[in-house]
């Protein structure tokens, strides 16, 4: 009796399986002209046959497997997200790099060189009023270029902030669109291939904005999470994210007036910035919170531009105030020429200025020594161009070299982003090609491809390792 029942169940199961094949064929015909529609297939599996053990064999339908299988779709989305990240980095860093002139013909390096030149001229004619005025003009130009550079970077930071807010809005809008598709799927349309195509198209667009995980549920809906942790969409419930500026309270900010950090908040208000890693949003957060902050500061750092401005201004002021305008008696001490916000290290570059009350005859020239040197101050100032003393350096290099380092940081970041973008575009093209390769093959054909690939992969891998080593050896020899 049990064998009879088992045979009947087996037959019913087989008929159901063939029924699903016919449904799939019908679906393919109906959606032949639907844009973005991918042909679907159904796989039938032979069941084990062992009558003595009550195993009656038969045929069972495997899960309905779309030829646009989710694995390949996910790989394409990941590469899309990574490509979009690099593209956004290139755009932002191109703008940043243009703020720094490393040719020495404009901006801070030209102003510094002109001022050093004026110090040298002043050292040869210390009493000349016109030469002294040139020094004051040069100092004013240095202060102006620091302010201009700071303002340009600050403006770019604000621009990045605005772009982050727009990207967050775009993410919420795209998730809302997919939420609507989920709603339709949950109304019993889970096998609607046209709906599936629209969902995939929307997920592709979302992957340009941010990196995420998508999981298709058995009810036809798709769940979306950031980094697999923060939900953006579950069934037909959307969880909106938001962006805001913040100065961390714990630990207390070392630079309270420094530019705030941009953070992303989940729908429950928790900070999820660290989970928004890819796509446009990830790149914009990196540029705002890390790259630009390294120049103009944030709650944890003064920023390299502010450090340079402070160290330069305080060194010039120090040499002038240690000198004498008149040896006396009574001796008349020198006065500082640069002013800046001394209470906030993150505000030095934007507040740097030359004291407008200073006149050329207030510039000290005498180094009291001993021995006293009549033009000792301008001599010491002119040596800032090629310093020998550690006190005239910043991080062990001259002020001009330090500027070169912070400028080249922007350039090297851009160069890396350009190289990475080219590689990413290749990886995206490859992922799309692999998706297409998998699209039209049966499981058995796929197994053959995998075995052939595995063998060829190992040979290629060995050759590339050899070439990599030989190339490195060549570079080492050529250096």
């Amino acid at each position: 009796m049990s064998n009879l029942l088992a045979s009947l169940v087996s037959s019913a199961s087989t008929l159901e399986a063939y029924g699903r094949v016919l449904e799939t064929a019908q679906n393919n015909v109906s959606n032949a002209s639907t844009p973005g529609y991918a042909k679907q297939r159904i796989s039938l599996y032979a069941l084990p046959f062992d009558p003595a053990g009550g195993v009656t064999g038969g045929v069972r339908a495997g899960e309905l497997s779309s030829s646009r299988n989710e694995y390949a779709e996910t790989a394409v989305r990941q590469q899309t997200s990574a490509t979009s990240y690099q593209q956004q980095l290139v755009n932002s860093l191109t703008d940043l790099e243009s703020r720094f002139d490393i040719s020495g013909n404009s901006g801070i390096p030209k102003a510094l060189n002109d001022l050093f030149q004026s110090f040298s001229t002043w050292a040869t004619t210390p009493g000349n009023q016109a030469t002294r005025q040139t020094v004051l003009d040069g100092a004013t130009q240095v202060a102006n270029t620091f302010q201009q550079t700071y303002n340009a970077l600050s403006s770019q930071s604000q621009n990045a902030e605005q772009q982050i807010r727009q990207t967050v809005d775009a993410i919420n809008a795209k998730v809302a669109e997919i939420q609507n598709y989920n709603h339709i799927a949950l109304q019993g349309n889970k096998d609607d291939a046209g709906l599936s195509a629209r969902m995939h198209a929307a997920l592709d667009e979302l992957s340009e904005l941010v990196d995420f995980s998508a999981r298709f549920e058995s009810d036809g809906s798709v769940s979306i999470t950031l980094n697999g942790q923060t939900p953006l969409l579950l069934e037909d419930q959307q969880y909106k994210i938001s962006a805001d500026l913040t100065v961390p309270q714990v630990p207390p900010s070392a630079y309270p007036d420094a530019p705030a950090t941009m953070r992303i908040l989940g729908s429950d208000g928790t900070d999820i910035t660290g989970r928004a890693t890819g796509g446009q949003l990830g790149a914009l957060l990196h540029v705002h919170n890390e790259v630009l902050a390294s120049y103009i500061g944030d709650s944890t750092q003064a920023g390299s531009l502010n450090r340079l401005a402070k160290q330069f201004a305080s060194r010039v002021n120090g040499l002038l105030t240690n000198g004498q305008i008149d040896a006396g008696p009574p001796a008349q001490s020198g006065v500082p020429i640069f002013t800046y916000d001394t209470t906030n290290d993150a505000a030095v570059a934007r507040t740097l200025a030359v004291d407008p009350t200073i006149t050329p005859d207030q510039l000290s020239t005498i180094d009291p020594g001993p021995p006293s040197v009549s033009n000792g101050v301008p001599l010491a100032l002119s040596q800032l161009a090629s310093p020998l003393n550690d006190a005239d350096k910043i991080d062990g290099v001259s002020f001009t070299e330090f500027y070169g380092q912070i400028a080249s940081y922007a350039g090297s970041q851009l160069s890396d982003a350009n190289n990475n973008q080219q590689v990413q575009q290749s990886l995206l093209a490859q992922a799309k090609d692999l998706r297409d390769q998998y699209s039209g093959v049966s499981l058995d054909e796929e197994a053959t491809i995998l075995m052939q690939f595995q063998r060829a992969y190992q040979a290629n891998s060995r050759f590339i390792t050899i070439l990599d080593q030989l190339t490195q050896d060549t570079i080492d020899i050529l250096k």
Partner: protein
Amino acid sequence: MPSVTLELLAATRAQLDAVCDLLLSPTPQAVDRCSVILETASRQMAECTAQIGSARGNPMALEAAAKLRRSCQRARTLLEAAGRFHFNWLAIRGALTGGYTDRGEPAPVHHSGSISLEA
């Protein structure tokens, strides 16, 4: 002979770029062709390394070698990405169809006893 060195470096780089182009569509046939090109490139590079000493300090040779290295790294990245794609899928497919082994690894994929019908 720096000019010979430069030519060898440029020729090797061109071969690696050809490999990169092939890896944009990493079918087994394409990857097989890559092996042939890479074997030639490796031989060429070994020859180049043997005579590179004469070009020591030559900035053009150094730049050419740096470009070659970038092409090599790009080829490696593309190959590894294709490998990850195939091997991860193989593991997922094994786990989906056969579960996991006693050691927690995805079951190996068996290809017998399956029928695939295309509708």
